[in-house]
């Protein structure tokens, strides 16, 4: 079975989640747990680094939809960065770039918070 892994780190007071592998209905709860944890600790500024993510299903997309809304309600956001083309295409197809910030690099994403 395809593996998924999410690791949390922090940089300039912003939490960065590195996601890796396959994000689908079975692995989405792992990511949700991390995001719920951040909300419980009132950490609303998050960057997700997609560098090593190979696939995202609609269940994975749903996670971002729900949590970005929650972060935004608390004046925060989740910026998405460093997506592979095939992953970006899935986000793009649904129109994610219209609603959410998807950036080329992690640095750009971090800077976006400071604008």
């Amino acid at each position, binding site marked *: 079975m*395809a593996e998924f892994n999410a690791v949390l780190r922090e940089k300039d007071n912003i939490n960065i989640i590195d996601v890796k592998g396959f994000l689908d209905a079975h692995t989405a709860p792992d990511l949700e747990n991390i995001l719920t944890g951040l909300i419980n600790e009132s950490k609303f500024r998050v960057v997700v680094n997609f560098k090593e993510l190979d696939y995202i299903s609609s*269940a994975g997309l749903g996670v971002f939809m729900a949590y970005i*809304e929650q972060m935004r309600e608390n004046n925060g956001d989740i910026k998405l960065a460093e997506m592979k083309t095939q992953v970006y295409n899935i986000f793009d197809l*649904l129109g994610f770039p*219209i609603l959410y910030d998807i950036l080329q690099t992690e640095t750009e994403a971090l800077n976006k918070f400071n604008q």
Partner: protein
Amino acid sequence: MIEKLLPNQKRFKFDALIILMAGLFLTKIFYSGGTDFISLILNELIVIGFSYFIIINIYKAVGNRKITPLNMIASLIVVQAVFLLLALSSGIILSNEKLVGQELIIQPDTIERIIISLFNLVILVISSIYLLSFRELFFLKQKKNMKAVYIAMVVFIILAVFTSFFVDKKLGYESFSFIHYAFYVNALILMFINSLQISWIAFLKKKEKRKLILLSVLMIIIASFSVSEISGNSSYSNLMSSYSYSLYQFSIMINIYCLMFFGVVFFTTLFHLPTAEAFDKRTKEISSLQYLSRLISQAQDFKELASSISEHSVEIAESQGSWIIWSRGDGVPVAVKNAGYTDALKITKFCNKYLTGLSIKTVDLKDLYKTEITDEKYQYAIIAPLKAYGKVHGYLFNLRKNNVEFDDEDKAVLETYSDYAAVAVENSFLLKESIEKERLEKELDVAREMQRKIIPQELPSYEKVDISAVFIPAFEVGGDYYDFFRLQEDKFAFVIADVSGKGISAAFIMAELRGVFESLTKIKSNPKEILGLVNQSLRRILDSKSFISAVFGIIDLSENKVKLVRAGHCPPILLTEEGLREINPTGLGLGMTFTDKFCDTLGEAEFELKENDTLILYTDGITEAKNSDLKDFGTDALINIVKDSKGRSSSEIANEIIRSVTIHSESNPQHDDITLVVLKLKK
């Protein structure tokens, strides 16, 4: 009344008993015997004979009940007290003159005979109850085969009883009295041996043992009084021996047996008392393990199971509080017994670093109170992992308030206990899983059925359009949906959609979606407007994680025009004489936002559909169909097939696409619904 309630067989025994007693009573009223040898023997034989059958019948009538030794002894004390009272009152029964001069052989009148007979009967019944009770107490939990010794004792008692008249000096058979004494001594020895064989005392709880000591002291006191009252020359001995020497002797011997028996009980219990606690503990352990083995074999509600595990651990660990933390849970104590929930929370948090590994751990809680205040002050905690097949399901907490640390023995006991408990837990998990699986399968059946009914059973037929559709549901029901709505004579709408999520919830959303499209297409004719309204109407049923991708379009066959909107869905492919292109107007998925942004960003494609032009609508079940290396089928592969399909009918194109997808995914199971709709304008 009572007799009616008794089962027939028991009633029969009562009847026999009453007949026998009446028989003895009447016989003795009319026959008092003489002093010659033959009459004496005859009298004794009659009494012994009747007594024997009376005892047998009493046994049959009341025997074989479940008894507890303590209750039986308590009732024996009452019987013994009654006996003592009777013995003391025997002087009143016979008028004093008859007793003056101890040599006198009583010549009672009829009324006195009746009284004497009744008195003797009562004594007989009392003595029988004794004998039978001792029998029960003797055989209770008896492991060794002691029947022979017991029978020997009874035989010697009968012999000693039968020969007792030899002793009476008045009768002049004194020279034979050695025979009686020989039997008597033998009977006493056997009584003593039997008294030593009691094996149930060790099984009593400490409390019960204390009670037993008190009872046996009480019994010894009353029995001593009785023995001193009835032996020797007393009104009792006169009263009894005038009736039958045997019965008199029998009542004495029973009393002596009673003294011996309770003397032995008293000392045995006294010696057992110091070890009673250890014995109690072992008993508890064994019974709780038995209890757990029963739990293992039963299908159990998970909560109940946790509750019983926790509750029983308090007993075997001799703790003052217990609870369980599940590994899969969120670290919150469950099944909290004898402790406050907030205390349990605090202590669990304090012990958090011990919640790891496979070994049992003891924790001194004194550091806890430096930072926390709890309702109850617990001194020590012992944490046993609930492990089965190398997997830790959780941890069982036990706490002590007193200053007694958990020792190695406690550890060993709890370890065994928690191992058993874990197996029960594992079983319950497995059971729950299989029930859950079955439930899910049922649910999927319902969802599949719903989807099958929502999706059109047959395709609409239009003179000018050749339509084909293929729908292959995934095992889990992926949420794909397509439909057609006739608007006017030469105008119809089509929709293809993919609801995120699976199973029954996706099927419900699908049903809603169909209803919304169906009604909106009747009142509106602008695709952009319709999709905007659809999005609004979904607000109520879509949760924050769900969305729907869709393509909706209207074909006007009078002008051969198509207006099409796309909400985050795979762009349809249009194949014309000039070539192939993807129709890709902008548009967010339905349910991604309910603000104006949805409509503001929604683009509309309008194009002409000429003869032989083909429009292909599909869901990502096609492009994301994976092979065993998890490689997608891909949009490019789809486009390549379509490119080469000029001149083919809609069904030929559909078949070719499905064939390629099937070849690509081969043995890899299908994870999402596959939907394909091909529209081709006829010549």
